[in-house]
């Protein structure tokens, strides 16, 4: 029998950080660093209906040189559990919108999504993994296969349970019947096996019971961690591991691709944000200093406008201006706060800011 001595490639596609409150027991950075240390091809961070950990994971992944996939785990009204992965900017946007939709519908801390909501993702290049728990509903698998053709898998999580072999057999049958491929996924809740006690404690807190009274609500062992590839090779058939890398290959979205995109309506045709800001500031200053603008003020305004131009913050000021103007027209009391109002060495208000009429107090820095 031919034994391969090379460790198989593996990408973990189902992983929760502690941004999934009271379920994940590790920081996103720790997960990323560990995955890198284990030689994973990629790690997907899939917190529950949230991208909250994405930024930290992104920064850590850049430091470690590990490809990071963004995604989310959601449990639908009918009980179906899915992992959605972003392949590109569009998928990321669609998944974000889905998260927002779900969160808005429910009380703070919860979310509510239906199969139809997820179905709307279908054309957006998002990938979907069905995560069956305990029993598989062939109808769910069929639905997924129909809505996400070519973009759907059944996730197989093997954690040394009492009937792993039978479970795998059953999943194979269903996959064959509905023509969905299988992929290995870890349902990872912590980066190291030794975080197990913390993870149990989180469960106890979530249920409001002492750990000793949680019974079967705890996991029976500590397998839901980022496992060594050697171990995974023993537990999973090689094609399921290979499939994780195939999926990771398709997910090329990185947060670096994002930048601020302001609405175009803020700036009239023919103007740039910079020129428009300069014009508005000039108007405001003229109104403030009818007898003539002091030299000191002019110099300050120039300095600040240069700074703003360097950082590209024009749209931000314009946005705030737009909001304040709206409020004033409606008679709503408002005060511009933050960097717009106090950008002049921290004492007093910014010249540009006052020029725009944003603060009631104007005291120019000496």
């Amino acid at each position: 029998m031919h034994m391969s001595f090379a460790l198989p490639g593996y990408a973990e596609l189902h992983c929760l950080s502690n941004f999934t409150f009271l379920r994940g027991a590790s920081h996103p950075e720790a997960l990323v660093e560990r995955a890198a240390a284990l030689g994973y091809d990629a790690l997907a961070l899939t917190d529950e209906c949230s991208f909250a950990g994405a930024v930290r994971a992104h920064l850590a992944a850049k430091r470690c040189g590990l490809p990071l996939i963004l995604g989310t785990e959601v449990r639908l009204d009918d009980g179906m559990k899915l992992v959605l992965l972003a392949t590109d900017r569009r998928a990321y946007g669609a998944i974000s919108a889905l998260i927002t939709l779900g969160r808005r519908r429910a009380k703070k801390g919860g979310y509510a999504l239906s199969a139809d909501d997820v179905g709307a993702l279908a054309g957006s290049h998002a990938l979907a993994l069905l995560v069956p728990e305990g029993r598989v509903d062939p109808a769910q698998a069929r639905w997924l296969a129909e809505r996400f053709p070519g973009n759907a898998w059944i996730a197989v999580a093997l954690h040394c349970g009492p009937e792993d072999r039978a479970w795998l057999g059953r999943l194979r049958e269903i996959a064959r019947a509905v023509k969905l491929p299988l992929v290995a996924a870890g349902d990872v809740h912590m980066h190291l096996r030794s975080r197990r006690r913390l993870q149990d404690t989180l469960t106890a807190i979530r249920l409001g019971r002492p750990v000793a009274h949680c019974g079967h609500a705890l996991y029976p062992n500590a397998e839901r961690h980022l496992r060594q590839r050697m171990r995974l090779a023993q537990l999973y058939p090689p094609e399921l591991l290979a499939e994780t890398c195939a999926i990771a290959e398709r997910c090329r979205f990185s947060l670096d691709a994002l930048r601020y995109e302001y609405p175009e309506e803020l700036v009239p045709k023919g103007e740039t944000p910079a020129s428009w800001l300069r014009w508005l500031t000039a108007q405001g200053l003229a109104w403030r200093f009818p007898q003539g603008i002091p030299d000191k003020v002019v110099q300050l305004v120039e300095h600040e406008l240069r700074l703003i131009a360097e950082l590209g913050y024009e749209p931000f000021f314009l946005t705030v201006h737009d909001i304040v103007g709206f409020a004033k027209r409606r008679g709503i009391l408002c005060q511009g706060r933050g960097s717009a109002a106090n950008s002049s060495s921290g004492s007093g208000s910014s010249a540009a800011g006052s020029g725009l009429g944003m603060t009631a107090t104007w005291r120019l820095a000496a």
Partner: protein
Amino acid sequence: MSWAIAEDRRVFACDAQAESLGVRAGMGLAAAWALAPGLRLRARDPAAEQAALEGVAAWLCRFTPAVSLEPPHGVLAEVHGSLRRFGGLRVLAAQIRDGVAALGFSARLAAAPSARGAWLLTFAETESLLEDVFALRDALERLPIEALCTSDEARVLLSRVGVRSVRALLGLPRAGVARRLGPALLEQLDRALGREPEPRRFFAPPEQFAAALELPAEVEHAEALLFALRRLLLQLEGLLSARQSGIRQFLVVLGHRRLAPTRIEIGLASPGRDAGRFLELLRERLSGHALAAPVEAVRVEADRFVPLAGKTAGLFGNAREDVEAWHRLVERLQARLGEDAVHGLGLNPDYRPERAWRCRPLGEDGPAMENLAFGPRPLWLVEPPRALEERGGVPQQNGPLVMLAGPERIESGWWDGAEIKRDYFIACSTNTALLWIYREPGGGWYLHGLFA
């Protein structure tokens, strides 16, 4: 063996044996010994007498709540309201007579329409159970004057006048009697005849039970104790009946001369008050056990009464008897084999196999079993797990074991000091038995169950 109670160097009371030898109450001790050389004496213990009296009174409370004491040796029970329930005066009197005898006392019984009348009639020669006033008057008239007289002085006075019976007394003019002898005598008479009411303080049965009995001779065999204990248990039953209560446990204390007392706690599967049941349990507990030392006194204590209604005979038919029979069986088994030897089984949501089950007390009638999902589990658990031999890394049991399923990894219990980290396998040996075995991280193999 004849016995007498002594007080102030005189015989206060003696038993039939001594009486037959001529000993009488009031006799000096020297005279008594002359008549009965083997006479055994005990000092009079008024406190013990009072306790015994209260014990009888408590037992009587099962017939009526209106029981009062007539110290030093009398108890009065107002049973008018109970006559119908207990089948009439004669039947009731028979029950009382038998019951008091079973408690170990001999008594003179009388019944009358008035309390004082009944009391006086106990001094009559024959037992009287009278239900109407005229019969009462007749019976009272026949009484000797000693019964009524409260003081020697009055008796002497009356006898000097020639009044030897109550009838004669009744013949005397009232005013004269009152003037000569004081109002007390007339008052007694009036009360006895039912002319005047007699307020009495009713006895309240206590909320716990403690009664002791000194044995006439030291007892060396446990079974012989049962006779004495039976009396105490009957008393206990009476009290519980009176209070409409039952108990779940009681304490038997055996007093030894030189050793500390032996304490035996008997527990019941369900609350009860039947003396027969208590005695059965005691018999089982004592059977086959040798006593630490000869016993000279026994004591029974019980507190913590719980409400227990009377038996409704046969209302629920067989089902109720069936449950009763089951509880009795469990009690009997536990009394002989120990409480730990008999119990039920229950599930426990714990991943550690040795803790996935629990003992259930058999009285417990729990809700339906929750559906707890476990992997395939063996019908027999080998406790404690048995270490297996290993050859070349393969565990052995009548030959090398072949793994058919697994590993099922169970790592649990870090929170209570009984943490396990095991990989379980279903293995089969050459004689085809299916075994449940596990391996530990250090490498040892253990047998934990049999699928058969």
